[in-house]
């Protein structure tokens, strides 16, 4: 496996402080490797977005990062902790090294500015020595890259369709050629045809430009198709992490299995859908032990007592994956 570009170590994020605090992300360890697409799945409220924004300190109040490190490995030079950067350094780091495509594109674009302005002001901020015309040329180039005619440069966001806006955002994310692109449910608002187009395009661009992607969605079947590795979150923790195919073929964590069993398949034999009983956990009053155990069909006695640690399972493909489940006692904790 190639070298890491982003390493998240024991990241903890809370909303609010004190008794009212909601721990939305708990001791998350995750490594993104150069050039890969890392999928992040989990049901709504499991902390996917919080993790993504937390590592770039973009959480809105009352979000607070209460601990952890986010190590960034630049192409050259030493790795550094993103959470330790000063405001100024962080501004420089943002978008140049990690860009984010947000959940809803309509809301990500400033409604009162032309998209050209919004594309070029990134360049203005990060490449102050670039000339006005060069900036525009670059913006035009990016739009072409994502398949939008250059004559839409002067359009306002509301004049573009949802798909086009999403593409503009992707183009904007790539404009500084960052190492990491984080995509938070980039296609949930679009219909399947559009979704496939955009994702296809993104994968193609990644192959050409070589950035790494963290791809967040709750649609596991989409992830399986498009990502290299998948991490599954539940109740603020990563419960399983493995290559996409491995997860699809045999997920180790009962929650991952449940997720997979919730999607009807379009092709192949009509298989029985299992779903996941019960309802998502309340982050304020987490069950003790494994937070999934109240819903887990395979829960047994240790589950309610102790929190399982994310570690390499004892399966044959163990070294390439990890899981946090008492069914698969850990040989070697990660992180």
């Amino acid at each position: 496996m190639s070298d890491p570009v982003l390493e998240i170590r024991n990241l903890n994020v809370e909303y609010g402080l004190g008794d009212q605090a909601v721990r939305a992300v708990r001791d998350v360890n995750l490594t993104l490797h150069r050039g890969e697409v890392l999928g992040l799945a989990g049901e709504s409220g499991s902390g996917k977005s919080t993790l993504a924004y937390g590592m770039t300190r973009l959480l809105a109040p009352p979000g607070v990062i209460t601990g952890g490190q986010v190590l960034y490995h630049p192409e050259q030079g030493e790795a550094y902790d993103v959470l330790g950067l000063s405001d100024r350094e962080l501004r420089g780091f943002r978008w140049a090294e990690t860009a984010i495509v947000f959940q809803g594109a309509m809301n990500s674009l400033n409604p009162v500015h032309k998209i050209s302005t919004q594309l070029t002001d990134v360049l203005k901020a990060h490449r102050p020595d670039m000339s006005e015309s060069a900036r525009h040329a670059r913006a035009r180039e990016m739009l072409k890259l994502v398949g939008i005619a250059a004559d839409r440069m002067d359009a306002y966001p509301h004049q573009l369709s949802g798909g086009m806006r999403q593409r503009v955002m992707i183009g904007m994310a790539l404009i500084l050629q960052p190492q990491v692109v984080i995509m938070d449910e980039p296609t949930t608002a679009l219909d399947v045809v559009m979704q496939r187009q955009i994702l296809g395009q993104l994968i193609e661009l990644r192959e050409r430009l070589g950035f790494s992607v963290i791809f967040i969605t709750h649609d596991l079947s989409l992830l399986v198709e498009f990502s290299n590795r998948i991490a599954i979150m539940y109740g603020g923790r990563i419960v399983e992490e493995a290559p996409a195919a491995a997860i699809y073929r045999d997920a180790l964590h009962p929650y991952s299995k449940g997720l997979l069993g919730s999607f009807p398949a379009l092709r192949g034999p009509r298989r029985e859908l299992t779903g996941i009983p019960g309802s998502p956990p309340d982050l304020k009053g987490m069950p003790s032990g494994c937070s999934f155990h109240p819903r887990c069909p395979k829960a047994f006695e240790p589950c309610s007592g102790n929190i399982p640690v994310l570690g390499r399972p004892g399966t044959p493909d163990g070294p390439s994956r990890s899981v946090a489940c008492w069914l698969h006692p850990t040989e070697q904790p990660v992180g």
Partner: protein
Amino acid sequence: MKYLLQRIAFYLFTAWAAITLNFFIPRMVPGDPVQALITKYQGQLSTQAIDSLYVLFGLDKDKGLWQEYLDYWGQLFHGDLGLSFTFFPTPVSEIISSSLPWTLLLVGITTIISFFLGTGLGVLAGWRRGSWADGLLPVTTFLSSVPYFWLGIIAIYLLTGPGSFFPSSGGFDNGLVPAFDQYFIPSALRHSVLPALTILISSVSGWILSMRNMMVTVSSEDYITVAHAKGLTDRRVAMSYAARNALLPNVSGFALSLGFIVGGTLLVEIVFSYPGIGFQLFQALGAQDYPLMQGIFLIITISVLVANLIADVAYLLLDPRTRKEG
């Protein structure tokens, strides 16, 4: 374009309705202008003058209300607002044209300053939450609740007097004549400082508060987070992203307040003896001066409507979403 036409039709209707109301409502008031005039002079004008005044005002002939209404519209279409009673026989249009500029300049400029100042401070308070700017809020809340005539009277008491820079009343020094010269302009400016400050103090907080709230609301929009994620400078995010969007809802409020310039400043003008149109209206009300009242109401109505139209257009310009192609 169609949007504009629709608005205009709507405005015309509103104008008609408002003018009609303005015609009928004052006439519900008991008594008549001649009596009002006699009463105003409380004995200085003897009752024998009554008959001559009826003749003078042309009230000796009894026309039906309906006929008067029709005549009124007839006059309006000729641009004739009639003759004032209080200032008989000065044409209403003359009274309005001599007092309107004062109001427009004093209150208009103050409203604009207040809007920009308040909006600016509101942007700061909304953006720099938790800093010194928060201290503005309790103070402004209190100030915005102070009746401004009360504030004005206190200001006159405390700040004016012999030798004070601030005059206590009027729009310019006695003995001067409105003209654009080096005597008049400074004098007019000096006279406008206190009334302007009074209006400013009690109106600026409204803008601060609403702008702050809008800033806070807009600040949590996704595109603000995106702007931060893009690594833009704080200034740029605050101004070009947050403030620019937060301003939009305030624009219509601003237009509305522009419309109320004429009608809403009655008391400042009374307290500071400012020669504006609000005070004229007040006098007209007391004297049952229908023609003057109607004329001023007409001006107010038109200015509110025009201000709204301007707001519509401004909105059209400021918010690209309302601009429809084709």
